[in-house]
């Protein structure tokens, strides 16, 4: 089982993370952005699992659980915000919500 080198696992995590990142940067649709953030979180979790498995320690998995928890909370709040924004602005364009513009 440990035949898979850690580098490969981490590389996979890195690629997934990068894909999520690209998506966050190019998307305007706020739901897509949320999805992309999920991808990134998932990638981060993957990295923890890989490391945990490499060292045969439970800590990596525990971290993944925390990330999972956080992702859940984040998605719920994020979706509520999306609903609110859609309600107020009648659009899902994240650029429209630029009231904090300096």
């Amino acid at each position, binding site marked *: 089982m440990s035949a898979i080198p850690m580098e490969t696992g981490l590389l996979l995590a890195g690629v997934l993370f990068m894909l999520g*990142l690209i998506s*966050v*940067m*190019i*998307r*305007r649709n706020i739901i897509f*952005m949320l999805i992309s953030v999920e991808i990134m979180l998932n990638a981060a979790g993957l990295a923890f699992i890989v490391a945990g498995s490499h060292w045969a320690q439970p800590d990596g998995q525990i971290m993944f659980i925390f990330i999972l928890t956080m992702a859940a909370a984040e998605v719920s709040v994020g979706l509520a915000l999306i609903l609110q924004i859609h309600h107020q602005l009648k659009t899902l364009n*994240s*650029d429209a*919500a*630029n*009231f*904090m*513009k*300096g």
Partner: protein
Amino acid sequence: MGELLWLIPALPFAGALLLVLFGNRISRALVSAIGVGSVGISAAVTLVLGIEYLTSRPAFIRQEVWQWFDVAGFSPAIAFHLDALSIVFIFVITFVGFLIHIYSTEYMAEDKDYARFFACMNLFVGSMLVLVMADNLLLLYLGWEGVGLCSYLLIGFWYKEPANGYAARKAFIITRVGDTAMAIGLFMLFQTFGTLHIQSISMEAAQVWTIGNETAVIIAFLLLGGAVGKSGQLPLQTWLPDAMAGPTPVSALIHAATMVTAGVYLIARMHVVFELAPAAMMAVAVIGAITLLIAGFAALTQYDIKRVLAYSTISQVGYMFLALGVGAWSAGVFHFMIHGFFKALLFLCAGAIILALHHEQDMRKMGGLSKKLPVVFYTFLIGAASLAAFPLVSAGFYSKDQILWLQLAGENGNIWLYLAGLLGAFITSIYTFRMVFLTFYGEEKTHVGHKPTMAITVPLIILAVLSFAGGFIELPHNFGHVVLFSDFLAPILPAVSVVPDFTQYEWMLQLLAAVISLGGIFIAYLFYYKKPELIESIHRSELAMAIHRFWHSGWGFDQLYDTLFVRPYVYLSRVNKSDFIDSIYTFIANSTQGVHQLFSTTQTGVMRNYVAGIVVGAIMIITISLLL
């Protein structure tokens, strides 16, 4: 009797206070009663004290009213000091002041600010009395500045005219320049003696300093600065001609009794210090000589009757400085007294004329007044004779002759100073009688309105008598040899030591002075009465007119100071109105704000940009950590 000393200055102050507080609510008669009465009583007290002093002959009377303050040994008192020198000054101030006050009741009768006028006049007299009676230099300084304030208030009395306000401020500020020098002198005196008590300083000075001591010279020069400012001498004389903006009694008061003579008093009072500083003495004499000439020439070209008199005051005070400068203390003070009489007389006469001619001051529009205003004419003539030092019968002759004589005969005398004085005397008689001829002879050019009544004529007559007879209390050695005045002052002011060789020539010099004086009168007669065409021929010459303009403007001192001090200061001040130091702080604030704005443009509100920013940041950090 000495206990009454404090009353002399206190009465005018009390009068001023009453008039300030209640002046607008009481009748004019009562205002006059308070205004004139307070100075009158003060004069009466002076008389009583003077008689007391003459009979008992103490060295001085000192009365401490209260301790002003006391800080670490610096403890001036509100204390008055009466000795022969101050008696002469108090006498002139209160009596001439009293006469001027009486005169003012008629002169100012129409003015709506009657009470304010008398309040200021009382304050003026009071301050001057404090000045001459002060026991220490700080109290003297109080009177000194008080006089400055009152001159400001009175010169600018008709405040609606901006020019008057300008003249008033000019007077105050220029004299303040002198006062500043004097204040520094006081600091130095205090540093040296640990006190400003005049008697202590006079007593200790000779022990502390040798003749020509550097500190003494500097102090003497600084005090001279103060004196020059108040007395309208070179280089601070420019305020005095402009001071004519005030009502005429004010001019009389400034020129005859108060203010202008303060410088003479200061030098005479501090003569011990000056004697230890020969350079400063020389400076006093030279300033006097130059001033008397410059002012004399300027007076020649004026048309405003009051300006002529103003320049003549500068010139006459120059004579006093000349006398003081050669150590002829009592001669200087004597001339002060006589000058006080005849200058008050001349100003009051001029005032009567101005009042009669509906506030016309230009002599070219006067003329032929000798018939219309006979009292004024005769009294003016006496005053003019005294000013021009008409031989034998005028008081001015004796006082001025004494000064001229001592220029040669005194041990510090100098032939050049003498010649300057002589030339000055010549010019004096020319411009004086130019004034007489222009004003009183020739055809009448302006209708005579107001005829003077008792309140004007009585002071005129009294002053005329004094200007005529005042000289007989001090006559030359070879001519009566009356020395009442110098004897009186002898305990305070040392007599000048005369070089004995000269005594035999004294009558020649007197004759010369008489001839000069008469010659001046004759020239005036020739030019301004007999053959006016001579003047016109002079006026045709380009050069003469240029000189005329130059002299008329008071030798261009006003323009000089304007370019040197006033305009640069005003310019600098205007340019910097919004305070360049503030702009430094504004710059800091603005640049902070600028940077802030710069950074706030990065806050686009577009989330993708922020993410990109994070990525860029991460890349940078990783790159840097890799490179290091």
